[in-house]
């Protein structure tokens, strides 16, 4: 029987960041919060209230915020620069590249409202290229947790890690299904469901959808292995290859552009190390649009139904 995940509630992953930051802030007085006029939206408000001397309101000046963070980091602080993912990556790519990644400074870029589920604000704000942008930078760690608890744990873990990190989370309220006492290990994938027919490598909000897909497929006699790739870089190569050697068929799923996303990282790994048919659930070279998060996930095919369809396609290719 497939392991069953029962949600303990529904919360937004950005609130997991807020809770994790507050807790980490209590443990380490070097942690500083930087925000660009979106303090409550990214859930940095509790940290700002608890530690007003360690909170820097940067205003709508994201380029400067990244530079200030680099200056604080090289001085021994642990700056957490937070805004919407669009402004935290696309708007400041060069600042991150030169002052943070190349200089290898200990800046934590914590980005909310990533992906299509930002919703009604539309394509200008719905970045689906951020994983690609960040994973291409040497020295940069890229993390995309799946629910509130995991985002909280990841937030605390990245504060312990020394080096640049891009932590990505989102706006919508989604099921909470991972343990609240989990220890987050950067770069260690989590096998959510053991299976033998197809490996599903999935990240972020899509993990819940993959679990739903697994349940449905189980009733049809298809046993998929669901592996939560919360860390896209460095990729857990050992865990991925181990699963692929067993299943010999792969589906990837993510709330991101296909170009540059998790699927692209996995495809590269398979091409180099272990050939296997692969199907990708991701946004195919399109900008987003306004709508409710759930509606958009369905319109753009980022849901359990599409993971199921991709699984069946890849099974056909495997069995050819």
């Amino acid at each position, binding site marked *: 029987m497939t392991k069953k995940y029962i949600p303990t509630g529904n919360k937004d992953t950005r609130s997991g960041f807020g809770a994790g930051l507050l807790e980490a802030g209590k443990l380490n007085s070097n942690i500083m919060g930087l925000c660009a006029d979106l303090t409550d939206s990214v859930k940095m408000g509790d940290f700002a209230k608890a530690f007003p*001397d*360690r909170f*820097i309101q*940067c*205003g709508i*000046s994201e*380029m*400067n*915020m*990244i*530079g*200030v*963070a*680099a*200056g*604080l*980091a*090289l*001085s*021994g*602080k642990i*700056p957490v620069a937070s805004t919407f993912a669009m402004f935290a990556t696309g708007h400041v790519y*060069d*600042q991150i*590249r*030169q*002052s943070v990644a*190349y*200089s*290898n*400074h200990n800046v934590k870029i914590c980005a909310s409202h990533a992906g299509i589920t930002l919703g009604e604000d539309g394509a200008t704000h719905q970045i689906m290229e951020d994983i690609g942008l960040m994973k291409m930078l040497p020295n940069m760690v890229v993390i995309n947790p799946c629910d509130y608890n995991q985002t909280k744990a990841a937030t605390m873990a990245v504060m312990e890690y020394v080096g640049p990190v891009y932590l990505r989370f989102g706006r919508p309220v989604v099921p909470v299904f991972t343990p609240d006492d989990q220890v987050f290990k950067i770069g260690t994938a989590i096998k959510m469901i053991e299976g033998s027919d197809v490996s599903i490598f999935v990240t972020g909000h899509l993990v819940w959808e993959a679990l739903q897909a697994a349940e449905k497929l189980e009733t049809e006699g298809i046993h998929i292995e669901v592996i939560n790739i919360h860390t896209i870089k460095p990729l857990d190569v050992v865990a991925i290859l181990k699963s692929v050697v067993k299943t010999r068929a792969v589906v990837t799923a993510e709330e991101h552009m296909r170009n540059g996303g998790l699927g692209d990282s996995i495809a590269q790994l398979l091409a180099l190390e272990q050939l296997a048919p692969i199907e990708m659930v991701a946004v195919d070279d399109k900008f987003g649009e306004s709508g409710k998060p759930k509606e958009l996930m369905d319109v753009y095919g980022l849901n359990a139904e599409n993971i199921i369809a991709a699984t069946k396609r890849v099974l056909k290719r495997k069995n050819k």
Partner: protein
Amino acid sequence: MTTIQNLEQIATQVRRDVIRMTADALSGHPGGSLGCADFLTALYFEILQHKPERFTIDGRGQDMFFLSNGHISPIWYSVLARSGYFPVNELSTFRKLGSRLQGHPTNASGLSGVRVASGSLGQGLSVACGAALAKKINGDPHLVYSLHGDGELQEGQIWEAAMFAASKKIDNLISTVDWNNQQIDGTVDSVISLGNLAAKWESFGWTVLHMQGNDMADVLRELGKAKSMTGKAKPVIILMKTEMGQGVDFMQGTNAWHGKVTNSEQTKRALRQLEETLGDY
């Protein structure tokens, strides 16, 4: 010998280094480097409270300097080496494969004296603001300095940082603009005019000082004045008039040598005008 004479001698030698390094590398940016030779010499040999032999990235207990216009790396490398940050002989590796002296400065190569990469313009003022804030938080009374090109002020991030520094009352920061009115495509006035630059900085909330950047006495005087203006709830900016290519007659006052180096005949001519005061590397 007076302090000024001593500094002028050092400035002559670091100018020689710049010509020799860029000529040898067959690339680099000698023009702006020569213009800033006096300022950086005064800063590193007289003004900064620093311990080159005990360099740390976090700069605790020392003054810190950030070069935002990273393309004038040859003059910075020369001054760093001559003031004891790394062996002077290493200047011969400038821009060569495997060198710590990259075309544009980086801490990634582990070069003592450099704390962050620069080259893509406009970023150094923000970084300096972060470092200055950290000093205030840590109760470290030392100062943070930064240098910027005038053309670099066309970058929007500079003005974000300018607003930020004044808004946060970062008054342990002394920034300097190398105002030579030259950039790659022509004079700064002709490319994108900076308008009334002093009024701009004043209106952004900075204390504005003026300096003749190729007059060692004035450089020392204004840097001293700038230090006395710190701790007064406002950041300090020095608008430093320099001449690009200063010190070599045929390179002076033109943007032609921004990113162009001397050939062997020109190198000889240039070096004849710059006395070897400390011994070449």
